[in-house]
């Protein structure tokens, strides 16, 4: 019955704690994104018009690289959790809603991995 239990959770039919977890993680990622995005927006703005090498030096600095990867991870996690709420509101058909959720989950993971790889490649000088 393990699969039924798991599917039930994916469908939002799990124990009340699942909803709390989603709610909490959406807020936790939001709190993390506030300083990360303020830092990112003003740092990148200062690099406007800078040559490629200057951007590489900034992204590749260890602290910046770690913060960038944290930003990318929190960004796509928070975005996926947010989209899930939006799908629950606008996609009443359960099968279609599950399809939307899967697509969002796959694409969020792929883009988060892609962003992290780009940062690592620059940081490790590949």
């Amino acid at each position, binding site marked *: 019955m393990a699969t039924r239990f798991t599917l039930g959770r994916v469908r939002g039919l799990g124990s009340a704690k699942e909803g709390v977890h989603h709610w909490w993680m959406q807020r936790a990622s939001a709190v993390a*994104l*506030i300083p990360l995005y303020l830092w990112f*927006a003003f740092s990148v703005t200062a690099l406007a018009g*800078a040559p490629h090498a200057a*951007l590489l030096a900034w992204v590749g600095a260890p602290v910046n690289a770690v913060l960038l990867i944290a930003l990318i991870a929190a960004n796509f996690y928070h*975005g996926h959790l947010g989209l899930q709420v939006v799908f629950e509101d606008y996609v009443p058909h359960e099968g279609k809603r599950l399809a939307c959720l899967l697509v969002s989950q796959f694409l969020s993971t792929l883009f988060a991995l892609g962003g992290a790889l*780009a940062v690592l490649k*620059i940081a490790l000088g590949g």
Partner: protein
Amino acid sequence: MTAENRPLSPHIFIYRLHLTTLLSGLHRITGVMLIPGSVLLVLWLWAAATGTEAYATATWAIGSWLGRLCLFGWTFSLFYHLCNGIRHLFWDAGHGFELARARASGLAVVAASGALTLAVWIAGYAARGG
């Protein structure tokens, strides 16, 4: 109940649009718009990691009028969603629910996100040298 006297949901022609309703809708719209924005952010990093030529293409795209328009929309969406997100977090903690305070904090969010957007664009043009 006959068709005439059944209860109706808010009628669009007599329904007054409240600032707080508008701002709440905008939180969702900006949140969803930030998703293609973050995809573009990853593509930009990817281009930077690929090489000088790919990065030059990305820089050219961002510098075009369409690129600047998208970047402006992204900047405003980001700051609006960030500021209004803070407002949401205060509500979640149980503060500021009263109508007058919700209105005041809504106005503060609009002012703060406008100011942050302007600040970033002024700083960006200053860094670029015009």
